[in-house]
């Protein structure tokens, strides 16, 4: 294969006065072609990251940098009980978001496999939570749940379950936020897992049927392993979407009541923009970033190890 106008043959080529092997020449060409976009990425992403890294080592406000404190902000973050509460809810929120939306999305994708009247319409309707802007959907959930006179609390009371404060009670608020997250996220899983299911060879499923594998055993021995790779990738993406999810929580509860639904990202935002402690807030974001990078490396390794198909 030759790239662009670079002349590369099996014997190699000359680059200035240096003789290069074909492999070296190809690598150089590829590096040269990638260079402009690498520079652009460094300029766009690298600079702010570096800037933020410096900022996390100062104890200033939004207006002045203050004094250099080294890793002082980080040490303080790790001693802060509010941080650990946020870690705890971030983990809960992420697990619920990933596994909940996967279970719902995958389940619906399985149901949609067999044709039934109105399937095309259903497919569109099921994507609605994803299509509707989150500001709109969080608003409608608020109308549905927020006050004791909203629709759902009234309904719950009517069937004799007493007065449930969906957003005012800390535990209920945590559950509500997680359910809302599942609701806005399952269409993504439905699309991805639906694609993976479509890709399964029909004959393979028939071969399994002839081999006596049907029902739940089919799910366990055929469908889950054959879609595992897609599942892992969808999980990784949803971990990022959940950990970094600011609007879902901020629009529904603002992190309350009593900080019960504050995730790390919400905490970082509030620290920077409400408490005016940029060094402290940025330090929290950095911790999240490092944790996510470590997690994604681990999960990507798992995918490679599973080496399915």
């Amino acid at each position, binding site marked *: 294969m030759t790239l662009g106008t670079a002349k590369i043959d099996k014997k190699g080529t000359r680059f200035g006065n240096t003789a290069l092997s074909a492999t070296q020449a190809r690598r150089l060409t590829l590096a040269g072609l990638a260079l402009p976009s690498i520079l652009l990425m460094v300029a766009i992403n690298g600079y702010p990251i570096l800037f933020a890294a410096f900022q996390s080592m100062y104890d200033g406000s939004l207006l002045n940098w203050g004094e250099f404190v080294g890793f002082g902000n980080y040490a303080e973050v790790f001693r802060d009980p509010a941080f650990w509460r946020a870690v705890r809810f971030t983990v809960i929120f992420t697990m619920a978001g990933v596994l909940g939306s996967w279970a719902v999305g995958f389940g619906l994708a399985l149901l949609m496999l067999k044709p039934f009247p109105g399937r095309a319409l259903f497919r569109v309707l099921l994507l609605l939570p994803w299509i509707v802007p989150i500001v709109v959907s969080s608003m409608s959930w608020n109308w549905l749940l927020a006050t004791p006179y909203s629709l759902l609390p009234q309904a719950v009371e009517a069937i004799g379950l007493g007065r449930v404060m969906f957003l005012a009670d800390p535990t209920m608020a945590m559950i509500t936020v997680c359910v809302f997250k599942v609701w806005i996220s399952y269409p993504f899983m439905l699309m991805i897992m639906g694609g993976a299911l479509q890709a399964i060879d029909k004959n393979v499923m028939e071969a399994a049927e002839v081999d006596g594998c049907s029902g739940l055993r089919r799910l366990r021995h055929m469908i889950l392993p*054959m879609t595992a790779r897609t599942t892992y990738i969808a999980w990784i993406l949803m971990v990022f979407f959940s950990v970094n999810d600011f609007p879902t929580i901020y629009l529904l509860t603002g992190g309350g009541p009593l900080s019960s639904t504050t995730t790390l990202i919400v905490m970082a935002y509030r620290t920077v923009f409400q408490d005016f402690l940029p060094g402290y807030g940025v330090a929290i974001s950095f911790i999240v970033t490092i944790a996510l990078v470590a997690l994604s490396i681990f999960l990507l390794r798992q995918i490679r190890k599973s080496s399915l198909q």
Partner: protein
Amino acid sequence: MARIELKNVSKSYGNHEVVWDLDLVIPDGSLTVFVGPSGCGKSTLLRMIAGLEDISAGDVLFDGERANDVSPVRRGVAMVFQNYALYPHLTVRDNIGFGLKMAGAGKDEIRERVDEAADTLHIEPLLDRRPAALSGGQRQRVAIGRAIVRDPTVFLFDEPLSNLDAELRVVMRVEIAKLHQQLRATMIYVTHDQVEAMTLADQIVVLRAGQIEQIGTADELFSEPRNLFVAGFIGSPQMNFLKGRHIGGGNIELAAGGRLHMPGHELADGEPVTVGIRPEHIVTQSETSLVSGRVDVVENLGGVRFAHTTLPSDETMVVESRADVRPKPGDNLSIGFSNRHVHIFRESGEAANRLTESAIGDSFRRVE
């Protein structure tokens, strides 16, 4: 082992009839081949026998018992698919052993029986690989291994060799024939390739548009095709068809010129007919010639040549010639044939009934 019977079986998708009111018996231990052009319903028929496809009307009987609503695994069938349909996430060993595992066999038993099947098919070195790391031929062996390990009552093959290259196809064809001799199990084999059908089958079922055109052994189909379709489908190169007319007294006048005396057929005077003659039954010696043809193209296969000729009637005719005659494009060939090799078809496409065998002579006819 099982004897399979289809009674008035039909299959339709909406208004579209794929198989229509079909009766068929597949004897115990036989190798039956369903053959026909694509869309003839042969695969659908096989899948109905497998239990993968619902039957719209009629019954499928396994050893006399109605099996319409019995699951594939309870029917005891094993199937080999055209694209092999191996489980991509399992090793070869687990692929072959999967059916046994599902049936609840013990680990030792599975291991033993997988080893046995692998030995039969010479795939022991592949047992720890995954399907993606196998060649087409190897995958086909694994697919067959997956079938034989379960010791099924019926083997179903759905165009199993279509995805292999020509050379490997011949090898695997022989292996399947051997396997049948060894196992003596009932096998049903679907193909669109008449050579596969002819070489493998105890019984060939020729299908067209969801109906059976003819059932018989390879010899029967070859020498006594019941209609134009079977005559054209069986045999390679195809049988030549010439237009003609019965002018009475068993004499048939060909559009290409020449006259055949074919007594003993149930034909009306003046009835238009189609005369069928296979390329290998044509003689190109001048004293026996009936019509003449101009050679357009010659296909040389080494031991044999096929001359594609055009007759005066603009009909084309393929003539087989052995080593001693070497026709060239542009040559005029004198074409003759013994009337004992001639097939007469009526306008409906059905073969004309013969009245008596003894009335048919064995002489060559000259151009008149």
